[in-house]
């Protein structure tokens, strides 16, 4: 009870000088707001990255034809072959699946009067497993299809809707690039890609059929490799790179005619600039908390000097040193706590505005609020102790003089 009364004295003295109180909490407000924004920002980006990695496949390595860092995969580079896939299968240890793919991005197809434009993939049976993407109606691509260069296809949900509406497509024939293919299955629904593309607007055919009958090529666009153990991935990537270098007669610093993507690289690429921004914002948050704390401490120290008489009087009417200490500490802690709430509010506001104004993924979560409370209390304590100690140490006789 007595403690409560003394704490209340500290809180009350904040109300008496609102400008001073505002400046005391300004640093905390900015610091905490920055903290909220940066964490929301980082969380959002991390979620997006996880999504990308999940889509990509956490255990997957992609060997893509064509050099360069970010060039979109195309089918104009002719150097990656089925033999490369076979070589990887034979020479790289602890890989579960090696599955080559050939594709064309825009290909026309027709069923009766209905037409559609979609992405065509030539795949091996292991493709289903490599992407965990199976046929939900009919069957997937089989070894038999590969061996016989079968004129069959498996279609995505969008194609099924566009060409067949509600009727059953399995067993029907469609024309793709004027080649007649029998629909042997329908792929399960995958939805939208992180990039915004439609996963379900695709058609898969046996890779032999694709290369010989549809695309007329003797090379592939990419090889997907699934490792048995993600721990081994770095060595496996090294090995694959060396192997392809040898097979394609490339000696660094000569430019590669392929590139390798892995979840780690995908994540690193996605983090890229956001990381710099996050570090900057964290630095801003830290700096404003520090500067805010120093300002808080100085204002409190000035206020102790200004209120010497008040302190002396309180001591005369019965306040102990501890009581004075508690009063000033309550004052600084209250300031930083109010500053924290204001900062949280401001941070949430900025986050919501950013979310509206930009396409940056932002996720609000509870963690930064707990972090804020911790930081606010730490700043309040750390920078409040010195003034409180000074106030408590005042000799009442001298303070009252």
């Amino acid at each position, binding site marked *: 009870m007595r403690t409560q*009364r003394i704490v209340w004295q500290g809180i009350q003295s904040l109300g008496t000088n609102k400008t001073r109180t505002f400046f005391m909490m300004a640093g905390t407000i900015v610091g905490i707001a920055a903290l909220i924004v940066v964490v929301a920002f980082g969380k959002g980006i991390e979620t997006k990255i996880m999504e990308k990695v999940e889509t990509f496949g956490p255990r997957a390595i992609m060997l893509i034809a064509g050099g360069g860092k970010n060039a979109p995969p195309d089918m104009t580079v002719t150097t990656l072959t089925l033999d490369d896939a076979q070589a990887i299968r034979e020479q790289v240890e602890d890989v579960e699946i090696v599955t080559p793919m050939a594709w064309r991005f825009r290909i026309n197809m027709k069923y009766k009067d209905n037409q559609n434009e979609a992405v065509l993939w030539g795949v091996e049976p292991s493709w289903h497993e490599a992407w965990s993407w199976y046929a939900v109606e009919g069957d997937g691509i089989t070894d038999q299809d590969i061996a016989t260069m079968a004129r069959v296809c498996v279609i995505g949900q969008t194609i099924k809707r566009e060409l067949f509406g509600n009727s059953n497509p399995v067993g029907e024939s469609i024309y793709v690039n004027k080649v007649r293919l029998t629909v042997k299955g329908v792929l399960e629904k995958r939805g939208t890609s992180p990039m915004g593309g439609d996963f379900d607007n695709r058609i898969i055919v046996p890779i032999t059929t694709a290369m010989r009958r549809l695309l007329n090529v003797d090379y592939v666009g990419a090889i997907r490799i699934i490792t048995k153990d993600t721990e081994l991935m770095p060595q496996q990537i090294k090995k694959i790179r060396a192997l392809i270098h040898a097979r394609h007669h490339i000696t660094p610093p000569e430019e590669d005619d392929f590139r390798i993507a892995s979840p780690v690289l995908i994540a690193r690429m996605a983090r890229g600039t956001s990381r710099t921004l996050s570090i900057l914002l964290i630095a801003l948050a830290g700096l404003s908390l520090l500067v805010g704390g120093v300002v808080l401490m100085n204002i409190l120290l000035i206020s102790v000097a200004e209120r010497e008489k008040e302190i002396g*009087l*309180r001591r005369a009417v*019965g*306040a*102990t*040193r501890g009581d004075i200490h508690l009063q000033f500490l309550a004052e600084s802690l209250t300031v930083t706590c109010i500053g924290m709430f204001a900062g949280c509010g401001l941070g949430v506001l900025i986050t919501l505005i950013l979310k509206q104004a930009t396409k940056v993924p932002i996720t609000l979560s509870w963690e930064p609020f707990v972090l804020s409370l911790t930081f606010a209390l730490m700043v309040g304590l750390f920078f409040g102790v010195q003034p409180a100690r000074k106030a408590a140490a005042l000799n009442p006789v001298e303070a009252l003089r």
Partner: protein
Amino acid sequence: MIEVERLEKTYSTGGLATPVLKGVSFHIDKGEYVAIMGTSGTGKSTLMNILGCLDKPTAGHYGLDGTAVGSLDDDALSSLRNRKIGFVFQQFHLLERATAMRNVMLPLIYAEEYPEDAEEMAERALTAVGLADRRRYRPNELSGGQQQRVAIARALITDPEIILADEPTGALDRKSGLEVMAIFKKLHEQGRTIVLVTHDRGVAEHAQRIILLKDGRVAEDRAVEERRDPDVELNTLGAGEDDG
């Protein structure tokens, strides 16, 4: 009530010892109205600080209401001040931003038990000093005399054993000063022990007894033969002056 025996106080600054009180002895009984008098530099402020438990003697004995003050630690002294002493200062020392009520109630904050009827107690104390109608006023809305009366009400609220007034009229004009002295007179008549510390013989003569300090020693300790009566003087001042 107050027992002071061979009290000494020596300040040492930079290795140089300055004796301020050099063996002061006196007793003050309950209900007495005593003035401690002396010119500046005679140690009366030091004596007041010791009597008020704000400072401790270097040697000698100070007993307050049966407690040997010299052996107490800082927290115990704080508690003692809170329970047994009511201070009245020359400069009033009111909290500028608090109302008269809140100023009067300040000592209760530091009491062990916060009385349930704190507000009524404060109102009673303000009534005792004639300021019941000013309880919502802040110090800057009150005259100097009124501020000092609020300070007296604050000293009264804990029902202390002694009221220790340090030059209580020093910052006031004559009429306000007399009004303050009239309150002390009334409080004394109600049985309170009052110790007045002043350099002014005119003020000291309101008390029953004067202890005169000179050079850190009691030079004189005698009853006042012709006590001044503030009520009589206020009457003769006439009604023409303000409340200043």
